Protein backbone atom coordinates (compact mmCIF):
# COMPACT_ATOMS: atom_id res chain seq x y z
CA UNK A 1 0.00 0.00 0.00
CA UNK A 2 2.82 2.35 0.98
CA UNK A 3 4.71 1.53 -2.21
CA UNK A 4 1.62 2.26 -4.34
CA UNK A 5 1.13 5.63 -2.61
CA UNK A 6 4.83 6.51 -2.92
CA UNK A 7 4.96 5.59 -6.62
CA UNK A 8 1.70 7.36 -7.45
CA UNK A 9 3.00 10.55 -5.83
CA UNK A 10 6.25 10.33 -7.83
CA UNK A 11 8.44 9.31 -4.90
CA UNK A 12 8.54 12.66 -3.09
CA UNK A 13 11.20 13.05 -0.43
CA UNK A 14 8.65 12.78 2.38
CA UNK A 15 7.12 9.51 1.06
CA UNK A 16 10.21 7.36 0.39
CA UNK A 17 10.03 3.77 -0.82
CA UNK A 18 9.71 0.87 1.61
CA UNK A 19 13.22 -0.22 0.64
CA UNK A 20 14.60 3.19 1.54
CA UNK A 21 12.78 3.16 4.89
CA UNK A 22 14.09 -0.34 5.65
CA UNK A 23 17.66 0.65 4.78
CA UNK A 24 17.40 3.84 6.86
CA UNK A 25 16.06 1.85 9.81
CA UNK A 26 19.05 -0.49 9.64
CA UNK A 27 21.30 2.58 9.44
CA UNK A 28 19.97 4.06 12.67
CA UNK A 29 20.43 0.72 14.44
CA UNK A 30 24.06 0.69 13.38
CA UNK A 31 24.53 4.08 15.05
CA UNK A 32 25.24 3.88 18.77
CA UNK A 33 23.22 7.00 19.74
CA UNK A 34 19.89 5.39 18.77
CA UNK A 35 20.12 2.76 21.49
CA UNK A 36 20.41 5.32 24.25
CA UNK A 37 17.32 7.14 22.93
CA UNK A 38 15.41 3.85 22.66
CA UNK A 39 16.46 2.86 26.18
CA UNK A 40 15.42 6.28 27.53
CA UNK A 41 11.86 5.92 26.16
CA UNK A 42 11.50 2.33 27.34
CA UNK A 43 12.83 3.18 30.81
CA UNK A 44 10.36 6.08 31.16
CA UNK A 45 7.46 3.86 30.07
CA UNK A 46 8.42 1.16 32.55
CA UNK A 47 8.95 3.63 35.40
CA UNK A 48 5.67 5.46 34.77
CA UNK A 49 3.68 2.25 34.31
CA UNK A 50 5.36 0.66 37.32
CA UNK A 51 4.44 3.62 39.51
CA UNK A 52 0.85 3.49 38.28
CA UNK A 53 0.67 -0.24 39.09
CA UNK A 54 2.22 0.11 42.56
CA UNK A 55 -0.18 2.94 43.47
CA UNK A 56 -3.26 1.98 41.47
CA UNK A 57 -3.71 -1.67 42.47
CA UNK A 58 -3.62 -1.29 46.29
CA UNK A 59 -5.90 1.76 46.17
CA UNK A 60 -8.20 -0.06 43.76
CA UNK A 61 -8.40 -3.07 46.10
CA UNK A 62 -9.26 -0.96 49.12
CA UNK A 63 -11.74 1.26 47.30
CA UNK A 64 -13.39 -1.73 45.61
CA UNK A 65 -13.95 -3.56 48.91
CA UNK A 66 -14.86 -0.61 51.11
CA UNK A 67 -18.22 0.98 50.40
CA UNK A 68 -17.55 4.10 52.50
CA UNK A 69 -14.17 4.67 50.84
CA UNK A 70 -15.76 4.23 47.44
CA UNK A 71 -18.41 6.84 48.26
CA UNK A 72 -15.70 9.20 49.54
CA UNK A 73 -13.28 8.87 46.61
CA UNK A 74 -15.60 8.36 43.63
CA UNK A 75 -16.23 12.11 43.08
CA UNK A 76 -12.48 12.78 43.07
CA UNK A 77 -11.76 9.89 40.73
CA UNK A 78 -14.53 10.96 38.36
CA UNK A 79 -13.28 14.55 38.41
CA UNK A 80 -9.67 13.76 37.52
CA UNK A 81 -10.14 10.72 35.30
CA UNK A 82 -11.54 12.53 32.21
CA UNK A 83 -8.72 15.09 32.26
CA UNK A 84 -6.49 14.38 29.22
CA UNK A 85 -3.03 13.47 30.46
CA UNK A 86 -1.42 15.70 27.84
CA UNK A 87 -3.13 18.67 29.51
CA UNK A 88 -0.99 18.29 32.63
CA UNK A 89 2.31 18.43 30.75
CA UNK A 90 2.69 22.21 31.28
CA UNK A 91 1.94 21.75 34.99
CA UNK A 92 4.50 18.95 35.21
CA UNK A 93 7.14 21.09 33.45
CA UNK A 94 6.38 23.94 35.85
CA UNK A 95 6.96 21.83 38.95
CA UNK A 96 9.43 19.22 37.73
CA UNK A 97 11.37 20.91 34.96
CA UNK A 98 12.25 19.36 31.61
CA UNK A 99 13.87 16.17 32.84
CA UNK A 100 12.81 12.53 33.01
CA UNK A 101 10.73 13.20 36.15
CA UNK A 102 8.25 15.14 34.02
CA UNK A 103 7.92 12.25 31.56
CA UNK A 104 7.48 9.71 34.34
CA UNK A 105 4.95 11.84 36.21
CA UNK A 106 2.79 12.42 33.11
CA UNK A 107 3.00 8.75 32.12
CA UNK A 108 2.03 7.52 35.60
CA UNK A 109 -0.84 10.03 35.75
CA UNK A 110 -2.19 8.77 32.44
CA UNK A 111 -1.64 5.10 33.29
CA UNK A 112 -3.13 5.02 36.76
CA UNK A 113 -6.77 5.50 35.72
CA UNK A 114 -7.33 2.31 33.66
CA UNK A 115 -5.51 0.29 36.34
CA UNK A 116 -7.41 1.87 39.21
CA UNK A 117 -10.86 1.65 37.57
CA UNK A 118 -10.37 -1.92 36.39
CA UNK A 119 -9.09 -3.01 39.80
CA UNK A 120 -12.10 -1.42 41.48
CA UNK A 121 -14.45 -3.12 39.00
CA UNK A 122 -12.72 -6.44 39.52
CA UNK A 123 -13.05 -6.30 43.29
CA UNK A 124 -16.47 -4.76 43.88
CA UNK A 125 -18.21 -8.08 43.58
CA UNK A 126 -16.68 -11.51 43.34
CA UNK A 127 -19.98 -13.21 42.55
CA UNK A 128 -22.69 -14.20 45.00
CA UNK A 129 -21.43 -17.67 45.94
CA UNK A 130 -17.84 -16.54 46.32
CA UNK A 131 -18.87 -13.59 48.49
CA UNK A 132 -20.83 -15.99 50.71
CA UNK A 133 -17.85 -18.35 50.96
CA UNK A 134 -15.60 -15.44 51.84
CA UNK A 135 -17.90 -14.24 54.60
CA UNK A 136 -18.16 -17.71 56.13
CA UNK A 137 -14.41 -18.30 56.05
CA UNK A 138 -13.92 -15.40 58.48
CA UNK A 139 -10.50 -14.43 57.08
CA UNK A 140 -8.59 -11.37 58.31
CA UNK A 141 -8.84 -8.32 56.06
CA UNK A 142 -5.29 -8.80 54.83
CA UNK A 143 -5.77 -12.52 54.09
CA UNK A 144 -9.03 -11.74 52.32
CA UNK A 145 -7.32 -9.23 50.02
CA UNK A 146 -4.18 -11.30 49.51
CA UNK A 147 -5.63 -14.81 49.09
CA UNK A 148 -8.98 -14.15 47.47
CA UNK A 149 -9.77 -10.64 46.30
CA UNK A 150 -6.55 -9.82 44.44
CA UNK A 151 -6.33 -13.17 42.58
CA UNK A 152 -10.03 -12.94 41.68
CA UNK A 153 -9.47 -9.43 40.33
CA UNK A 154 -6.34 -10.31 38.30
CA UNK A 155 -8.14 -10.66 34.94
CA UNK A 156 -9.59 -7.15 35.34
CA UNK A 157 -6.27 -5.80 36.66
CA UNK A 158 -4.42 -7.14 33.64
CA UNK A 159 -6.95 -5.57 31.31
CA UNK A 160 -6.14 -2.25 32.97
CA UNK A 161 -2.39 -2.86 32.67
CA UNK A 162 -2.72 -3.71 29.00
CA UNK A 163 -4.60 -0.49 28.28
CA UNK A 164 -2.14 1.51 30.37
CA UNK A 165 0.89 0.05 28.58
CA UNK A 166 -0.35 1.53 25.30
CA UNK A 167 -1.05 4.84 27.05
CA UNK A 168 2.47 4.80 28.54
CA UNK A 169 4.08 4.65 25.12
CA UNK A 170 1.79 7.32 23.68
CA UNK A 171 2.52 9.71 26.54
CA UNK A 172 6.26 8.96 26.56
CA UNK A 173 6.51 9.92 22.87
CA UNK A 174 4.21 12.93 23.32
CA UNK A 175 6.25 14.43 26.17
CA UNK A 176 9.50 13.74 24.31
CA UNK A 177 8.09 15.49 21.22
CA UNK A 178 7.29 18.55 23.35
CA UNK A 179 10.46 18.64 25.45
CA UNK A 180 12.69 17.78 22.48
CA UNK A 181 15.66 16.62 24.53
CA UNK A 182 15.98 12.84 24.18
CA UNK A 183 14.08 9.64 23.62
CA UNK A 184 12.32 8.30 20.52
CA UNK A 185 9.99 11.30 20.46
CA UNK A 186 13.01 13.58 20.12
CA UNK A 187 14.41 11.30 17.34
CA UNK A 188 11.13 11.76 15.41
CA UNK A 189 11.36 15.54 15.63
CA UNK A 190 15.09 15.60 14.89
CA UNK A 191 14.86 13.36 11.80
CA UNK A 192 11.82 15.27 10.50
CA UNK A 193 13.60 18.63 10.85
CA UNK A 194 16.77 17.21 9.30
CA UNK A 195 14.86 15.93 6.21
CA UNK A 196 15.90 12.36 7.11
CA UNK A 197 12.45 10.99 6.35
CA UNK A 198 13.57 7.41 5.89
CA UNK A 199 14.91 7.42 9.45
CA UNK A 200 11.78 9.23 10.65
CA UNK A 201 9.49 6.50 9.32
CA UNK A 202 11.93 3.87 10.53
CA UNK A 203 11.69 5.32 14.06
CA UNK A 204 7.90 5.14 13.86
CA UNK A 205 8.23 1.46 12.88
CA UNK A 206 10.49 0.90 15.91
CA UNK A 207 7.95 2.61 18.20
CA UNK A 208 5.21 0.35 16.81
CA UNK A 209 7.41 -2.68 17.42
CA UNK A 210 8.09 -1.59 21.01
CA UNK A 211 4.33 -1.37 21.51
CA UNK A 212 3.86 -4.82 20.04
CA UNK A 213 6.57 -6.27 22.30
CA UNK A 214 5.02 -4.61 25.35
CA UNK A 215 1.64 -6.15 24.53
CA UNK A 216 3.15 -9.57 23.94
CA UNK A 217 5.09 -9.40 27.22
CA UNK A 218 1.99 -8.47 29.17
CA UNK A 219 0.05 -11.34 27.57
CA UNK A 220 2.84 -13.74 28.50
CA UNK A 221 2.88 -12.51 32.08
CA UNK A 222 -0.90 -12.69 32.28
CA UNK A 223 -0.95 -16.31 31.10
CA UNK A 224 1.71 -17.24 33.65
CA UNK A 225 0.08 -15.46 36.57
CA UNK A 226 -3.56 -16.22 35.78
CA UNK A 227 -2.88 -19.91 35.24
CA UNK A 228 -6.42 -20.88 36.15
CA UNK A 229 -8.09 -19.21 33.17
Amino acid at each position, binding site marked *: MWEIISLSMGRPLYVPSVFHIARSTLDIFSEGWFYSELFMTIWRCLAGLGLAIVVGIPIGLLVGRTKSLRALLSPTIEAFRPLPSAAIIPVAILFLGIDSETNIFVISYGCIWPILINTIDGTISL*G*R*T*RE*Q*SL*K*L*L*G*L*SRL*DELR*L*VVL*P*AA*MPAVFTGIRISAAIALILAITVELILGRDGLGYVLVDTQRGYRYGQMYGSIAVIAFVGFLANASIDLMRNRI*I*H*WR
Partner: protein
Amino acid sequence: MKIERLRKTFGDLVVLQDITVTLTAGRPVAIIGRSGSGKSTLLEILAGLLQYDSGSILPEPGVIRTSLVSQDYRGSLFPWLSVRRNVQIALPPHDRKKQIEDEVIDRVGLHEWSERFPYEMSGGMRQRLAIARALVGSPGLLLFDEPLASLDAVTRLELQDLLSETLAGATSQTVLVTHDVEEALYLADEVYCLSVGGKGLRYLGSFNFTNRPYSQDVKFIPEFVAARSALLSALNNS
Protein backbone atom coordinates in the same frame (compact mmCIF):
# COMPACT_ATOMS: atom_id res chain seq x y z
CA MET B 1 -29.42 -24.58 67.56
CA LYS B 2 -33.00 -23.65 68.33
CA ILE B 3 -35.02 -21.80 65.71
CA GLU B 4 -38.41 -20.46 66.81
CA ARG B 5 -41.16 -18.81 64.79
CA LEU B 6 -38.74 -17.43 62.26
CA ARG B 7 -40.14 -14.99 59.73
CA LYS B 8 -38.57 -13.43 56.67
CA THR B 9 -40.10 -11.15 54.06
CA PHE B 10 -38.78 -9.43 50.98
CA GLY B 11 -40.94 -6.33 50.74
CA ASP B 12 -44.54 -7.59 50.55
CA LEU B 13 -43.50 -11.15 49.80
CA VAL B 14 -43.59 -13.48 52.79
CA VAL B 15 -40.93 -16.08 52.12
CA LEU B 16 -40.65 -17.74 55.53
CA GLN B 17 -43.19 -17.77 58.33
CA ASP B 18 -43.56 -19.66 61.59
CA ILE B 19 -40.38 -21.69 61.09
CA THR B 20 -39.63 -23.71 64.20
CA VAL B 21 -37.02 -26.45 64.35
CA THR B 22 -34.37 -27.70 66.80
CA LEU B 23 -31.08 -29.02 65.48
CA THR B 24 -29.19 -31.74 67.32
CA ALA B 25 -25.53 -32.60 66.86
CA GLY B 26 -25.12 -35.90 65.02
CA ARG B 27 -28.73 -36.01 63.72
CA PRO B 28 -28.82 -34.51 60.23
CA VAL B 29 -32.01 -32.72 59.25
CA ALA B 30 -33.25 -32.58 55.65
CA ILE B 31 -35.57 -29.87 54.40
CA ILE B 32 -37.45 -30.63 51.21
CA GLY B 33 -39.70 -28.25 49.33
CA ARG B 34 -40.69 -27.01 45.93
CA SER B 35 -38.70 -24.38 44.09
CA GLY B 36 -39.42 -20.98 45.58
CA SER B 37 -40.38 -22.32 48.99
CA GLY B 38 -37.52 -20.44 50.69
CA LYS B 39 -35.14 -23.34 51.40
CA SER B 40 -32.01 -21.46 50.34
CA THR B 41 -33.21 -18.32 52.14
CA LEU B 42 -33.55 -20.33 55.35
CA LEU B 43 -30.01 -21.69 54.98
CA GLU B 44 -28.62 -18.21 54.33
CA ILE B 45 -30.29 -16.98 57.51
CA LEU B 46 -28.84 -19.87 59.54
CA ALA B 47 -25.42 -19.12 58.08
CA GLY B 48 -25.70 -15.48 59.12
CA LEU B 49 -25.62 -14.29 55.51
CA LEU B 50 -29.14 -12.83 55.65
CA GLN B 51 -31.06 -11.06 58.44
CA TYR B 52 -34.40 -12.39 59.56
CA ASP B 53 -37.38 -10.18 60.41
CA SER B 54 -38.72 -11.78 63.57
CA GLY B 55 -38.52 -14.92 65.68
CA SER B 56 -35.41 -16.19 67.40
CA ILE B 57 -32.36 -18.28 66.64
CA LEU B 58 -30.25 -19.47 69.58
CA PRO B 59 -27.35 -19.20 69.48
CA GLU B 60 -27.37 -16.36 66.94
CA PRO B 61 -26.03 -17.14 63.47
CA GLY B 62 -22.29 -16.53 63.28
CA VAL B 63 -21.60 -17.60 66.88
CA ILE B 64 -21.09 -21.26 65.92
CA ARG B 65 -18.46 -21.93 63.25
CA THR B 66 -20.50 -22.62 60.11
CA SER B 67 -19.77 -24.18 56.72
CA LEU B 68 -22.00 -24.03 53.67
CA VAL B 69 -21.79 -26.29 50.62
CA SER B 70 -23.89 -25.09 47.69
CA GLN B 71 -24.49 -26.57 44.27
CA ASP B 72 -22.37 -23.83 42.74
CA TYR B 73 -19.00 -25.46 43.46
CA ARG B 74 -17.33 -23.32 40.79
CA GLY B 75 -18.26 -20.17 42.65
CA SER B 76 -17.29 -21.36 46.09
CA LEU B 77 -13.84 -22.78 45.30
CA PHE B 78 -10.78 -20.65 44.56
CA PRO B 79 -9.22 -21.87 41.28
CA TRP B 80 -5.91 -20.13 41.95
CA LEU B 81 -5.33 -22.18 45.12
CA SER B 82 -4.37 -25.84 45.15
CA VAL B 83 -6.69 -28.48 46.63
CA ARG B 84 -4.70 -28.40 49.87
CA ARG B 85 -4.79 -24.61 50.10
CA ASN B 86 -8.51 -24.49 49.29
CA VAL B 87 -9.16 -26.71 52.31
CA GLN B 88 -6.51 -25.13 54.54
CA ILE B 89 -7.97 -21.65 54.07
CA ALA B 90 -11.04 -22.71 56.08
CA LEU B 91 -8.90 -23.34 59.17
CA PRO B 92 -8.14 -20.66 61.75
CA PRO B 93 -4.66 -19.12 61.14
CA HIS B 94 -3.06 -20.90 64.10
CA ASP B 95 -4.16 -24.30 62.70
CA ARG B 96 -2.98 -23.77 59.12
CA LYS B 97 0.51 -25.12 59.65
CA LYS B 98 -0.59 -28.29 61.43
CA GLN B 99 -1.60 -30.10 58.21
CA ILE B 100 -4.98 -30.92 59.68
CA GLU B 101 -6.38 -30.70 56.17
CA ASP B 102 -4.60 -33.91 55.08
CA GLU B 103 -7.01 -36.16 56.97
CA VAL B 104 -10.12 -34.63 55.47
CA ILE B 105 -8.61 -34.54 51.96
CA ASP B 106 -7.94 -38.29 52.34
CA ARG B 107 -11.47 -38.86 53.56
CA VAL B 108 -13.03 -37.39 50.43
CA GLY B 109 -10.66 -39.36 48.19
CA LEU B 110 -8.55 -36.48 46.88
CA HIS B 111 -5.21 -37.43 48.44
CA GLU B 112 -3.47 -37.75 45.04
CA TRP B 113 -4.84 -34.38 43.96
CA SER B 114 -3.71 -32.29 46.92
CA GLU B 115 -1.23 -30.22 44.93
CA ARG B 116 -3.43 -29.90 41.82
CA PHE B 117 -5.90 -27.12 41.08
CA PRO B 118 -9.71 -27.20 40.91
CA TYR B 119 -9.75 -26.40 37.19
CA GLU B 120 -7.87 -29.66 36.57
CA MET B 121 -10.66 -31.69 38.20
CA SER B 122 -14.09 -32.91 37.19
CA GLY B 123 -17.31 -31.50 38.63
CA GLY B 124 -17.69 -34.40 41.06
CA MET B 125 -14.13 -33.98 42.32
CA ARG B 126 -14.65 -30.26 42.82
CA GLN B 127 -17.74 -30.94 44.87
CA ARG B 128 -15.68 -33.40 46.96
CA LEU B 129 -13.22 -30.56 47.50
CA ALA B 130 -16.06 -28.22 48.54
CA ILE B 131 -17.22 -30.89 51.02
CA ALA B 132 -13.66 -31.31 52.34
CA ARG B 133 -13.41 -27.59 52.96
CA ALA B 134 -16.76 -27.63 54.74
CA LEU B 135 -15.71 -30.48 57.03
CA VAL B 136 -12.18 -29.41 57.96
CA GLY B 137 -11.79 -28.30 61.54
CA SER B 138 -15.16 -29.83 62.51
CA PRO B 139 -17.53 -26.88 62.21
CA GLY B 140 -20.43 -26.71 64.67
CA LEU B 141 -22.99 -26.15 61.90
CA LEU B 142 -22.92 -27.82 58.49
CA LEU B 143 -25.28 -26.53 55.82
CA PHE B 144 -25.81 -28.20 52.45
CA ASP B 145 -27.80 -26.33 49.80
CA GLU B 146 -28.68 -28.90 47.13
CA PRO B 147 -25.00 -29.89 46.95
CA LEU B 148 -25.46 -32.65 44.38
CA ALA B 149 -28.05 -31.00 42.11
CA SER B 150 -25.66 -30.02 39.32
CA LEU B 151 -23.93 -33.42 39.07
CA ASP B 152 -24.68 -36.33 36.76
CA ALA B 153 -26.60 -39.32 38.13
CA VAL B 154 -23.62 -41.63 38.70
CA THR B 155 -21.48 -38.97 40.37
CA ARG B 156 -24.45 -37.97 42.51
CA LEU B 157 -24.76 -41.53 43.86
CA GLU B 158 -21.02 -41.63 44.62
CA LEU B 159 -21.19 -38.38 46.52
CA GLN B 160 -24.34 -39.47 48.34
CA ASP B 161 -22.31 -42.37 49.71
CA LEU B 162 -19.46 -40.02 50.65
CA LEU B 163 -21.86 -37.69 52.46
CA SER B 164 -23.57 -40.62 54.11
CA GLU B 165 -20.26 -41.88 55.54
CA THR B 166 -19.17 -38.39 56.52
CA LEU B 167 -22.41 -37.44 58.27
CA ALA B 168 -22.60 -40.79 60.08
CA GLY B 169 -19.55 -39.86 62.13
CA ALA B 170 -20.09 -36.09 62.28
CA THR B 171 -20.61 -34.22 65.54
CA SER B 172 -21.91 -31.14 63.76
CA GLN B 173 -25.47 -29.95 63.58
CA THR B 174 -26.38 -30.57 59.95
CA VAL B 175 -29.08 -29.19 57.67
CA LEU B 176 -29.43 -30.52 54.16
CA VAL B 177 -31.70 -28.73 51.71
CA THR B 178 -32.76 -30.79 48.73
CA HIS B 179 -35.62 -31.24 46.31
CA ASP B 180 -34.66 -34.92 46.00
CA VAL B 181 -36.84 -36.91 48.37
CA GLU B 182 -34.70 -40.03 48.07
CA GLU B 183 -31.59 -38.06 48.95
CA ALA B 184 -33.32 -36.58 51.99
CA LEU B 185 -34.16 -40.06 53.30
CA TYR B 186 -30.71 -41.42 52.46
CA LEU B 187 -28.73 -38.72 54.23
CA ALA B 188 -30.90 -37.36 57.05
CA ASP B 189 -32.44 -38.67 60.25
CA GLU B 190 -35.29 -36.17 60.26
CA VAL B 191 -37.19 -34.67 57.34
CA TYR B 192 -39.15 -31.43 57.19
CA CYS B 193 -41.14 -29.94 54.34
CA LEU B 194 -41.13 -26.22 53.61
CA SER B 195 -44.28 -24.92 51.94
CA VAL B 196 -44.36 -22.27 49.26
CA GLY B 197 -45.69 -18.84 50.19
CA GLY B 198 -44.42 -18.79 53.74
CA LYS B 199 -46.89 -21.38 54.99
CA GLY B 200 -44.48 -22.83 57.50
CA LEU B 201 -42.22 -25.83 58.09
CA ARG B 202 -43.92 -29.21 58.54
CA TYR B 203 -42.25 -32.06 60.37
CA LEU B 204 -42.60 -35.23 58.28
CA GLY B 205 -40.91 -37.72 60.55
CA SER B 206 -37.77 -39.39 61.81
CA PHE B 207 -36.34 -42.08 59.51
CA ASN B 208 -33.89 -44.85 60.27
CA PHE B 209 -33.84 -47.91 58.05
CA THR B 210 -30.67 -49.79 58.96
CA ASN B 211 -27.39 -48.84 60.61
CA ARG B 212 -25.70 -45.79 59.12
CA PRO B 213 -23.96 -45.24 56.81
CA TYR B 214 -26.41 -46.72 54.33
CA SER B 215 -25.56 -48.42 51.07
CA GLN B 216 -27.55 -47.75 47.89
CA ASP B 217 -29.41 -51.05 48.44
CA VAL B 218 -31.43 -49.42 51.19
CA LYS B 219 -33.41 -47.54 48.53
CA PHE B 220 -35.07 -50.81 47.52
CA ILE B 221 -36.29 -51.98 50.92
CA PRO B 222 -40.08 -51.67 51.43
CA GLU B 223 -39.82 -49.19 54.33
CA PHE B 224 -37.68 -46.83 52.26
CA VAL B 225 -40.02 -47.11 49.27
CA ALA B 226 -43.04 -46.39 51.47
CA ALA B 227 -41.32 -43.42 53.10
CA ARG B 228 -40.38 -42.04 49.69
CA SER B 229 -44.01 -42.23 48.54
CA ALA B 230 -45.19 -40.50 51.68
CA LEU B 231 -42.67 -37.71 51.31
CA LEU B 232 -43.49 -37.22 47.63
CA SER B 233 -47.14 -36.91 48.54
CA ALA B 234 -46.29 -34.33 51.20
CA LEU B 235 -44.17 -32.43 48.69
CA ASN B 236 -47.00 -32.41 46.15
CA ASN B 237 -49.39 -31.04 48.74
CA SER B 238 -47.00 -28.30 49.84
